[in-house]
């Protein structure tokens, strides 16, 4: 029973991180109609920046509690990158064909992946100090890292915060209006460019946060972003591109299937995930919650 409970917690932990990545991807698609292939790389950058900052801070003898502040800082750095990328590069592609949008973000992915290699080298970076700062909890005779529960909390908080921003604030109204009809929103006096850049930065922040909170429990390694991107694709395909609920449900489905897969059919765990995505696309092309 305790094992079962721990597996559920593991799934929720994984779902939190996946939700952060996929929700950012989905938000960007929902508003700008761009599938951002570089999204995975942004997640990787969040992980590397946070791990590096934690490493510096520990070297300076910072108290463990302060280290937690570095998680939003790491995510913020990624949001700043987003603030640069959107106006400089992506903006000119909104009117172009989808092929070009995909290719330009694919090029960006290659550039960002190598930028990480250039800055931090090829070695994995860890941020164990954060993991150790949270005491373990005992669950029916088994020990479980308390940090994982913090991550689940962050995931829930992020989902609630994002929902509140989109459905309960004036900015959210502008965001939804722009997403539904860009020209009409512009005619009503909404600064569409500002909405786009903010939405992109929020999406990047979410990806960076995903990377920042996972790095204490597993090291930041090269290529982590490319792998995460494909899983995030699976999530948004199951849930529906552009849908927040979809990202949440998709993340839960993917992480529970993955936990089951690791337990019972490890060889074909990933294949099963991709097959589920393909099945959903066959039955309901827009995903479970999509209306794109």
């Amino acid at each position, binding site marked *: 029973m305790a094992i079962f409970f721990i597996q559920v917690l593991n799934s929720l932990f994984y779902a939190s991180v996946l939700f952060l990545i996929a929700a950012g991807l989905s938000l960007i698609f929902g508003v700008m109609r761009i*599938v951002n292939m570089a999204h995975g790389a942004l997640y990787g950058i969040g992980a590397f920046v946070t791990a590096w900052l934690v490493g510096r801070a520990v070297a300076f003898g910072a108290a463990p509690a302060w280290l937690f502040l570095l998680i939003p800082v790491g995510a913020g750095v990624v949001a700043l990158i987003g603030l640069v990328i959107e106006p400089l*590069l992506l903006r*000119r*592609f909104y009117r*172009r064909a*989808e*092929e*070009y949008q*995909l*290719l*330009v973000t*694919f*090029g*960006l*992915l*290659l*550039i960002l*992946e*190598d*930028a990480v*290699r*250039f800055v931090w080298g090829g070695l994995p970076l860890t941020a164990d100090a954060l993991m150790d700062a949270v005491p373990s909890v005992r669950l029916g005779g088994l020990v479980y890292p308390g940090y994982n529960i913090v991550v689940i909390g962050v995931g829930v908080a992020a989902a609630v915060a994002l929902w509140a921003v989109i459905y309960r604030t004036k900015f959210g109204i502008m965001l939804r209006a722009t997403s539904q009809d860009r020209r009409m929103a512009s005619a009503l006096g909404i600064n569409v460019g500002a909405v786009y850049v903010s939405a992109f930065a929020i999406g990047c922040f979410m990806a960076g946060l995903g990377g920042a909170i996972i790095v204490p429990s597993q090291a930041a390694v090269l290529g982590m972003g*490319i792998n995460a991107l*494909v899983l995030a*694709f*699976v999530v948004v*395909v199951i849930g529906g*591109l552009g849908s927040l609920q979809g990202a949440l449900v998709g993340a839960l489905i993917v992480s529970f299937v993955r936990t089951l897969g690791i337990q019972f059919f*490890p*060889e*074909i*765990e*990933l*294949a099963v995930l*991709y*097959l589920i*995505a*393909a099945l959903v*696309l*066959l039955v309901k*092309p827009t995903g479970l919650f999509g209306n794109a």
Partner: protein
Amino acid sequence: MMKADAPIVSHRPELALAAVSAVVLVALALVPQVVDLYQTQLLTYGLIAAIAALGFNLLLGYTGLLSFGHSAFFGIGAYTIAFLLRYLNIHSMEIYLAIGLAVVAVTSVLFGYICVRHTRIFFGILTLALSQVLYSLALKLFWVTGGTDGLRVARPSLLFGLVTFSGAGSFQRFIGTYYYYVLALFAVSVVILWVIVHSPFGKALQAIRDNETRAAFLGLRIPRYRLIAFTISGTFTGLAGILWAPLNGLATPDVLYWTFSGEIVFTALLGGFRSFAGPIVGGIVFTYLKTYAVATTEYWQALLGAVLVLLVIVLPTGIVGALSQLAAKLTTKAKS
């Protein structure tokens, strides 16, 4: 068609095209006589990439479907050969081609049947997801596929066992002979695909690409046309995989990974996916570009990425598109 638009002063464009193609083919056939072995090997890789991109472009350029999963067919081609060698101890290239093409065609029909119900971004993601299924299987079922190490592919015998490679200098002989083998299949592929895109079937595909609704009103059965295009496309990319495996000597999961599909898309764009010859130029240029990028800098990925971004911004019609525009400009100037 860019090639037809090219400013060749002739009243018989087909004749002129045939003449130009013959000159190019002869030039390609003479290349190994003037360059060293390494360059010959590189050009062989380039021709194989060109076949892969030509097949891919039947979908992107002529049917308007962007596949992000063509690595699947390339990889299936390569792995089929590795399996034939490892489990059935077959060494003949012709048997590889016969069985490999059949396997690739069947998989293409299967994948196509699932994918062509969708267009645009969903088509892309669906092809990507299916190719990732194969990648993860190749990675995880390591006792069958060799996992990340891949499977060794020995040098096969060519022309029904007439030409074999063993003993001293066999590598040099293999590269020298295999180049012509690939060149011949490349020429055959070009002719077949050229005929296809200029046939009524090819015109129908372009009609579907340009206006799906109108094409449907004309009575075209769109899903069927797309499925056939998908199958042909996958089969040619698979042929490239079959030819690649013996040259590379190893079938590895990298060629099934989705970033390899990205490279195929890159190749077609580099040459220009709006023209027939674009993917050919793209395949050869990309091979050289990547080889030299890898040789000169550790950060070759970033270099390729930067080239891709610049290309999309500055040269969206690719090398061939830009050249034909330039040529068109020069001729109008010369006339005035």
